[in-house]
């Protein structure tokens, strides 16, 4: 394995690990958004009926 190859693999694997962490944060934000959207829809329905 050449040095460039090792550097590539280390960088790629580090980015993948960070991707997992950041992806989990997105799921968390999406869950909060879903809750807010459901709340907004509920209030809109209450207002129109």
């Amino acid at each position, binding site marked *: 394995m050449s040095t*460039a190859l090792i550097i*590539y693999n280390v960088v*790629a694997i580090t980015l993948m690990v960070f991707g997992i962490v*950041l*992806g989990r944060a*997105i799921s968390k934000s999406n869950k909060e958004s879903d809750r*807010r*959207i459901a709340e907004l*829809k509920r209030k809109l329905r209450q*207002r129109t009926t």
Partner: protein
Amino acid sequence: MTSFWPYLVVLAPALFCTALGFIVTVSPWVKNTLMPWYTTTLQSEAKVEYLRDLCSNLSFMGGAAGIAFGMSENSLATKVVAITFFAMAQWYAWDLVARLERLRAEKGLLQVSNPLGVQAVASNDEAVLD
């Protein structure tokens, strides 16, 4: 195939220190600095769009570079890493697309509920509807 065990034994103290440094330094930095900045970024439509495009482009560039490296050096491991990198970067871009859909839905609902834009300062300002 070259045996990697002797290398692993020699590098063990360095690897241990790296892991320890990660737990002591990097982990709190991710929690206290990176995450608050990142969650703020996820509230902005323009920034999420930018991140999605950047991530999608990087997935193709990184994947292609890895495949090229793997072919020139005849390394199967690098090809596997390149394909996994491509798949995970696309997955992350897909997560960002899902985030974008939520942001747009929220924005649309706020516009419907408050067409004149009164007090529409924050997307989570529920006082608008009361």
